[in-house]
């Protein structure tokens, strides 16, 4: 063992070098390099393909030989429905190369560098956990106005425009600031209180149309050792799926609009207080499944399909997502929020239904006509039926369910929509202000209240403060209901 000290004048200790370089290297936190790895570059060339000639068969004037590139979010709906529609595109334009199709779960990581470089694909299904912020995309003028598509003759009936074949609210959802339509939502989601008809029958009960019945049913279930409600405690922003339409039903559409517009004191409306207190009562009376605040969406859905809880706030994708654990005789159904009392502004049946799977065409897309044509094909009856059959979800195309054998969940979705008629509400917080909705209102607000750690009054105060801060924040773009 010789000396390894560097303090002698023998030159340089080996350990000394190693130690110092190690210290230098360790200080480098990867985060920084990671962030600037997606640094912006100069904009790409803004070359678009030449337009083709418009004709009855080709109303958008697609260039018949130009390539088309589509990026699909590969999540609950998979990618097959898009592949099927792309095949039809290639049949319509045999001279064009095969549509370039990519499916990914990580939309933002995949596409961010391409947006920064100015070379985005032609059509994007901007969905999932890594959804790119729509507000920013619109604000930075990165998207194309889809009005030409909406005004084009529809695929099945040239006498009708595409916009007249869509379900109510779809076009409005794609608007952010006036007339242009930036987003084409392809799926149609019904939100509400999901339950098992079989489980209710075992308790000799029907779906409770009033809040008193709801409490009575929960009490009855509790005596049998079944919880009334569960929800994904890890992602408390599921609670609004049944709570927002409940607020809208109690206080009317205006209350939800005020909330979306971030108006001062919007959350202090008596309807919000009444709805919060009703939900808080579920917690206080012990009707919420024990341990719920620690469950993921999958875990809570599994508890629900196992029959340990009667109700869960959710959206129509739950049928597909919970399929592996759902028993044969479960009879999944969706219900509208129960009536709180007779002074509710809107009748029973009021429901939240709106578009899902937002498709966008980037402003710098090379072949925007092709992208819109692809959407036009997807909005045909045949493609819509194919979508509905394969992924068990309604599409934005109004219809396309005739003659299909629907599951109980799908059928009940169609039924509640029919019953709701005009009374479909569409809160927009989750599209306009993602952070406010998911993290602040969901996690910090409702999650704490439903876990019994904050009272409704405290929660309202907290959420109002979050909303006020978002309204003041100049770094985010603000939107208003038209």
């Amino acid at each position, binding site marked *: 063992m010789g000396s390894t000290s560097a303090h002698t004048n023998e030159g340089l200790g080996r350990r000394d070098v190693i130690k110092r370089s190690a210290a230098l290297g360790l200080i480098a936190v990867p985060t920084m390099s990671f962030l600037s790895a997606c640094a912006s570059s100069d904009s790409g060339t803004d070359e678009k393909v030449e337009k083709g000639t418009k004709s009855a068969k080709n109303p958008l004037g697609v260039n018949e030989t130009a390539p088309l590139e589509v990026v699909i979010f590969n999540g609950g709906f998979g990618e097959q429905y898009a592949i099927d529609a792309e095949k039809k595109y290639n049949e319509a334009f045999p001279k064009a190369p095969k549509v370039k199709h990519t499916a990914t779960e990580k939309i933002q990581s995949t596409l961010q560098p391409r947006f920064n470089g100015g070379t985005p694909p032609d059509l994007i299904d901007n969905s999932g956990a890594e959804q790119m912020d729509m507000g920013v995309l619109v604000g930075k003028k990165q998207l194309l106005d889809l009005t030409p598509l909406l005004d084009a003759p529809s695929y099945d009936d040239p006498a009708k425009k595409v916009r007249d074949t869509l379900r109510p609210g779809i076009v409005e959802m794609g608007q952010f600031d006036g007339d242009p339509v930036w987003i084409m939502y392809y799926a149609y989601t019904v939100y509400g209180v999901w339950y098992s008809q079989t489980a209710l029958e075992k308790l000799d009960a029907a779906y409770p149309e009033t809040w008193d019945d709801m409490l009575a049913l929960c009490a009855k279930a509790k005596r049998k050792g079944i919880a009334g409600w569960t929800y994904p405690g890890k992602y408390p922003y599921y609670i609004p799926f049944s709570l927002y339409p409940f607020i809208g039903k109690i206080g009317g559409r205006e209350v939800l609009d005020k909330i979306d517009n971030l108006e001062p004191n919007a959350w202090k409306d008596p309807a919000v207080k009444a709805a919060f207190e009703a939900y808080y009562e579920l917690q206080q009376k012990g009707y919420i499944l024990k341990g719920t605040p*620690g469950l993921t969406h999958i875990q809570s859905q599994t508890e629900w399909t196992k029959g340990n809880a009667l109700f869960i706030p959710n959206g129509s994708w739950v049928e597909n997502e919970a399929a592996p654990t759902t028993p044969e005789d479960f009879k999944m159904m969706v219900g509208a929020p129960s009536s709180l009392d007779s002074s509710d502004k809107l009748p029973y049946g009021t429901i939240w239904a709106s578009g899902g799977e937002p498709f966008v065409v980037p402003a710098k897309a090379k072949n925007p006509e092709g992208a819109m044509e692809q959407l036009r094909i997807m909005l045909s009856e045949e493609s819509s039926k194919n979508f509905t059959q394969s992924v068990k979800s309604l599409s934005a195309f109004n219809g396309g369910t005739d003659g299909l054998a629907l599951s109980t969940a799908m059928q009940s979705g169609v039924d509640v929509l029919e019953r709701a008629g005009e009374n479909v509400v569409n809160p927009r917080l989750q599209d306009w202000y993602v952070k406010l909705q998911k993290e602040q209102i969901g996690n910090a607000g409702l999650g704490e209240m439903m876990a019994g750690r904050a009272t409704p009054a405290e929660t309202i105060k907290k959420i109002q403060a979050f909303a006020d801060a978002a309204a003041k924040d100049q770094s985010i773009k603000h939107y208003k209901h038209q």
Partner: protein
Amino acid sequence: MQHGKYRFIAGFLVVPLALYAVFVIWPFVQSIYYSFTDWTGLSPDFEMVGFDNYSKMLQDDIFWKSLQHSVLLVLLLPLVTLGLALFFAFMLNVGGRRRKGAAVTGVRGSSFYKIAYFFPQVLSIVIVALLFQFAFNPTSGMLNSTLKAIGAGSLQSDWLGDPDLALYCVMVVLIWSTVGFFVVLFSAGMASIPKDFYEAALLDGASRITTFFRITLPLLWDTVQSGWVYMGILALGVEAFTAVQVMTVGPGGPDYSTSVLPLYVYQTAFRDAQAGYATTIGVGLLIVTMLFAAVVMRLGRRERLEF
């Protein structure tokens, strides 16, 4: 020979240094530049906004909360992990009862324990976090079920769903997954300590505890110090981020109780599309890391021992 020392080193390290400059230093400089812009990360156009991001950061409650949690992790994790690892390593190498023919041995079955401790190191942190997420599941998780089985049902809790416990749950997972590495590291260090030191101490009648503090720890000090920096980096950086992102509510914990700086950087950049502000928080994280490394290097200085 002293005067040309650093040129001499740099000459040998020119290629790695160039790589380091391009892939580490340059991105740092770029990030600091971006922290003065309003770049969204979704479009190539942005403007200079001066110190706006910095003033916003200083008024941002969530930033302070995340900073608090990151600092707590960086203080507690190395302490607990290295303490445990030192204890285990000592028991495996030196702590055994005296048996014939050897002055120092480990406890019985130490070769098996070495493998057992090291095992979590083989698993990716993502897998570890997922496994623990199941264990912490309040309704059917291993933890609550065990508590119920041994009749301690009153101790059941929501674990990751409880703001007072969530961060500690994350810490337990991080300790569990990293302690094995340090056990192996310290074992290697202890193996290089000459046996005669221990024999001499034993002849003088030193107890195990005295042996540890008077011989093992001083001779291992260099290794402990490196381990301390390394563990700190894990606590500030990628391991902590992964565990929080995979396991906790939100992610970020109920009421921000597990939010840590790297997670906040990630969310700001990739969820809120505020890349400029995210790099600002990144700069904050850089400062914290530098401070930590400086403190450890400064406090860790000791007289060098030669043997």
